[in-house]
């Protein structure tokens, strides 16, 4: 059986498709009813194997364009069945990393990841969001008798940057699927503990799924509930409120009522503060722009370890480009992007974490925040 995507361009073609669906008893996936088939709107249908040839011939004769989305339905079904290929044992069955997932599914995924990798993974609570949702991170830690330093990575501090949480999930999957077979990952886990926060701004992320795709901030109410949201990446206690912010709630870069005014900020900051002497590297993942950004945003004065920071970042950018040719620019936020204060990355460096980077993932504006799902895999692979 095959699944085809068909786009009838004219009324006649739409009518012909309606006819085909009804007479051949095709399994229409989208739209729901043949009567809803419209010119200019794409249609998806499953075609039983014995009818595939005849159907394609009919489409060709009417100059109707189609694309095969699934060349073999049975194969795909078998792949996502439990007890299938052993490489899927460590990763939740059928979780599609090349699609964007709503928060509910991400919570479930986190639970499953922990359960199916309990020798390495623990789920730890960090705090609560404004709307009382639990913030948790995944701790990936290989048992060892030597104490290990920590690499921290958070995703989704800005709600609309969907590729960011997608990358955190991909990252976890890659590590857990390959730590036994890949020497680089094995060495990584021998030497460091990984702390991954897949979605920092949970309320905002949910809001971007349900109400406003381009929401950025969290969902804290201000001015008696007439205005919502603080930009969490302007809310940290690093030159807070000085530059590149707005004091007006209606702005997308509103820095909040004070440094660490937001529960999400406090949850992350208090935790990192406590563990700071063990944290080697703080990474925070954003989109878009294709940058690896070093401190600071609040000043052009370089940090004390600037040379080393840039050197490492340039090696990362080169490795990234080696995969698919994607160009990332490397430099400080204040020189490359814009001035901002109160960012989590600046704060992390100021309290003493040596290697702190903000990644701005694909792309450079063509799709911007609405990066199509077919770019999830290449983006994640190259960033890996």
């Amino acid at each position, binding site marked *: 059986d095959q699944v085809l995507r068909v786009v009838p361009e004219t*009324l006649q073609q739409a009518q012909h498709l309606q006819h085909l669906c009804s007479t051949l008893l095709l399994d229409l996936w989208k739209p729901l009813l043949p009567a809803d088939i419209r010119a200019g*709107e*794409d249609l998806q249908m499953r075609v039983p194997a014995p009818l595939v040839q005849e159907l394609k011939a009919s489409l060709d004769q009417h100059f109707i364009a189609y694309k095969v989305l699934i060349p073999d339905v049975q194969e795909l079904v078998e792949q996502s069945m439990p007890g299938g290929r052993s490489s899927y044992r460590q990763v939740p069955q059928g979780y599609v990393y090349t699609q964007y997932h709503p928060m509910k599914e991400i919570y479930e995924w986190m639970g499953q990841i922990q359960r199916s990798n309990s020798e390495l993974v623990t789920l730890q609570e960090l705090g609560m969001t404004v709307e009382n949702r639990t913030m948790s991170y995944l701790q990936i830690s290989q048992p060892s008798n030597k104490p290990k330093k920590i690499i921290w990575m958070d995703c989704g501090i800005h709600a609309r940057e969907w590729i960011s949480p997608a990358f955190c999930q991909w990252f976890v999957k890659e590590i857990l699927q390959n730590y036994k077979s890949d020497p680089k990952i094995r060495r990584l886990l021998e030497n460091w503990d990984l702390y991954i926060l897949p979605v920092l701004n949970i309320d905002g992320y949910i809001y971007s799924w349900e109400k406003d795709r381009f929401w950025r901030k969290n969902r804290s109410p201000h001015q008696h509930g007439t205005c919502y949201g603080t930009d969490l990446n302007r809310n940290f206690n690093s030159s807070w409120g000085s530059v590149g912010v707005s004091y007006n709630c209606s702005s997308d870069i509103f820095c909040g009522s004070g440094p660490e005014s937001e529960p999400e900020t406090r949850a992350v900051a208090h935790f990192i503060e406590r563990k700071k002497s063990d944290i080697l590297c703080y990474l925070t993942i954003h989109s878009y*722009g294709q940058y690896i950004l070093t401190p600071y945003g609040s000043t052009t004065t370089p940090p004390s370890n600037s040379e080393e920071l840039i050197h490492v970042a340039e090696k990362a950018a080169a490795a990234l480009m080696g995969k698919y040719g994607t160009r990332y620019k490397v430099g400080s936020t204040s020189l490359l992007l814009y001035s901002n204060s109160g960012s989590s990355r600046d704060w992390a460096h100021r309290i003493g974490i040596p290697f702190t980077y903000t990644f701005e993932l694909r792309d450079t504006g063509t799709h911007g925040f*609405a990066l199509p799902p077919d770019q999830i895999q290449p983006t994640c692979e190259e960033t890996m």
Partner: protein
Amino acid sequence: DLDDVGHKYSLELVLEDILDRDTTVNCTAEVLYHLGNKNLAPAVQFTLEGDLKNTDEADNTFYNQIRSLEKELVAENIPDSHGNMPPALEPIHLLGWVASGYVIWQNSTENTHFHPAQIKHVKQVKRSDEYLEFDYMILLHEMVSQ
């Protein structure tokens, strides 16, 4: 830095055909951001090394497709939340992006960085002549103010 006038930038850039990324045209340009009057769009002069591809065929196909519709075209959220759009709406999308380019130019300063984010809504306006008219509501993302 031109005293009392503004800031002039000399640029060398490469234009990439959106529909065929391997086709490029070299371009040199001068952009002048006016001092003082921020309501004036930057002045732009440019020269192309070579010709832009002819789009008559694609334009005609699009024109005829729209003319053949029974009802005026209406669409929203292009692309959708996931970044997808029906292939048939690609020309509508491109048209919207081109129109955005004009609005962005008119509203650009040295401290702005605009990209079109999404066509929230587009509807075709009924006309009695042979022109096609579309009414777009487009979201633009400004990088600095976010």
